[in-house]
């Protein structure tokens, strides 16, 4: 019996182009995973195969993005390939750090150009502090959590960490972003550049929404899957 995808709308046998068409946020997932656009009639399984990605795991990530409030079943989690989850999380960090945050910074810089010096200074400081916090958060995951997951996968025993510790230390990076959103939306001084405010808000929303999915993949998929592996060895 072939492995059944647990959402009828998404299956490894469907065309990749049709999958992408379900929800445009999936374009980001595909791009980050290195899938090459120009899919033609290739199926999800074909395209994932080219990149050595498990199609079910790819679809699991897609469901998190496409269906609000999606919660995977135990069975789906049991079949997820951890390497691909970590790969996705890692590539997402790079995307936030190298693409979204610099775009946001550029737009914000232009927006506050016309503000008074002190207003400019305080908004910019808030943003750079947030940026700093975000990189620290990512650095912790890159430096401590992901290597640990690799160790679990490699069944190495020299580990001084548990995934539970990660869950406890998993800081909330969304609060400050929401504050920034409200500061720009509600309190940006009218003399500040209006033309770039839209771009700032667009990138904030992009980041906010993606980070929410990202956090769910960490807390709702990575943590339970690794936790189960810890207990079953």
């Amino acid at each position, binding site marked *: 019996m072939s492995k059944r995808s647990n959402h009828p709308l998404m299956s490894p046998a469907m065309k990749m182009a049709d999958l992408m068409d379900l929800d445009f946020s999936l374009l980001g997932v595909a791009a980050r995973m290195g899938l090459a656009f120009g899919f033609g009639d290739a199926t999800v399984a074909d395209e994932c195969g080219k990149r050595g990605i498990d199609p079910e795991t790819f679809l699991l990530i897609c469901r998190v993005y496409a269906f609000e409030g999606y919660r995977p079943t135990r069975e789906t989690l049991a079949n997820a390939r951890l390497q691909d989850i970590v790969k996705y999380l890692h590539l997402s960090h790079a995307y936030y750090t190298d693409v979204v945050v610099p775009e946001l910074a550029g737009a914000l810089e232009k927006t506050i150009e016309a503000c008074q010096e002190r207003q400019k200074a305080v908004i910019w400081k808030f943003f750079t502090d947030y940026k700093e916090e975000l990189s620290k958060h990512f650095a912790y995951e890159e430096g401590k959590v992901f290597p640990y997951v690799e160790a679990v996968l490699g069944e190495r025993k020299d580990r001084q960490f548990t995934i539970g510790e990660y869950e406890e230390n998993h800081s909330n990076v969304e609060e400050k972003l929401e504050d920034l959103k409200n*500061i720009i939306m509600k309190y940006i001084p009218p003399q500040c550049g209006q033309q770039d405010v839209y771009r700032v808000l667009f990138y904030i929303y992009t980041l906010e929404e993606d980070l929410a999915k990202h956090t769910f993949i960490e807390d709702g998929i990575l943590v339970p899957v690794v936790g189960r592996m810890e207990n079953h060895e």
Partner: protein
Amino acid sequence: MSRRILIVVPSSIAAKGLEQVFSDLGEFEVCAILQDLSGPVEVQLRTMAPDVIIVDPSVYDFASRNSIKARIAEYTDAAVIAFAAQPLEEEVLRQFEGCIGLMDSPTAVIRKVRAALEDRGETPRADGEELSQREKEILICVARGMLNKEIADVYNLSIHTVITHRKNITRKTGIKTVAGLTVYALLNNLIDMNSIE
């Protein structure tokens, strides 16, 4: 239930005038009018159990004028509003939850008393989005990096009340973090750059 108001004003004309403002509203009830509050009368505050005390600071001598609220707080947790028959110094004024002036209109008086009661977290809040004066004051403290305990001490409020104010500030502004509130305070000219850090 109507709010109990204690008036402590040496001028009987002024006291009568205040009493008049609160009569016939149902919302308030003047439970007593005193001409002095220093000395043995203070103890009576416990049994009177007022919700609001309107006090003319001149009933206290100069030396104790800066600690009127603190003295009253030993007996009751009533909101304390100054009645300024003459202009009051900033240091004296700061301790009160409001200040009523001789020239205030009756509606202004009512508004100030309601605002002071709001500080005690007792009246259901009108769901305005504008920060109240007290909320602004607390926001400024937060932006300056003060802890809830320190803010409570400065304004003679309970920590619980400070937390309620902070929740309302966050609800109204949409801003949760201290860093974000600092930006808000600065953009709205509530603080200047020099007073942070």
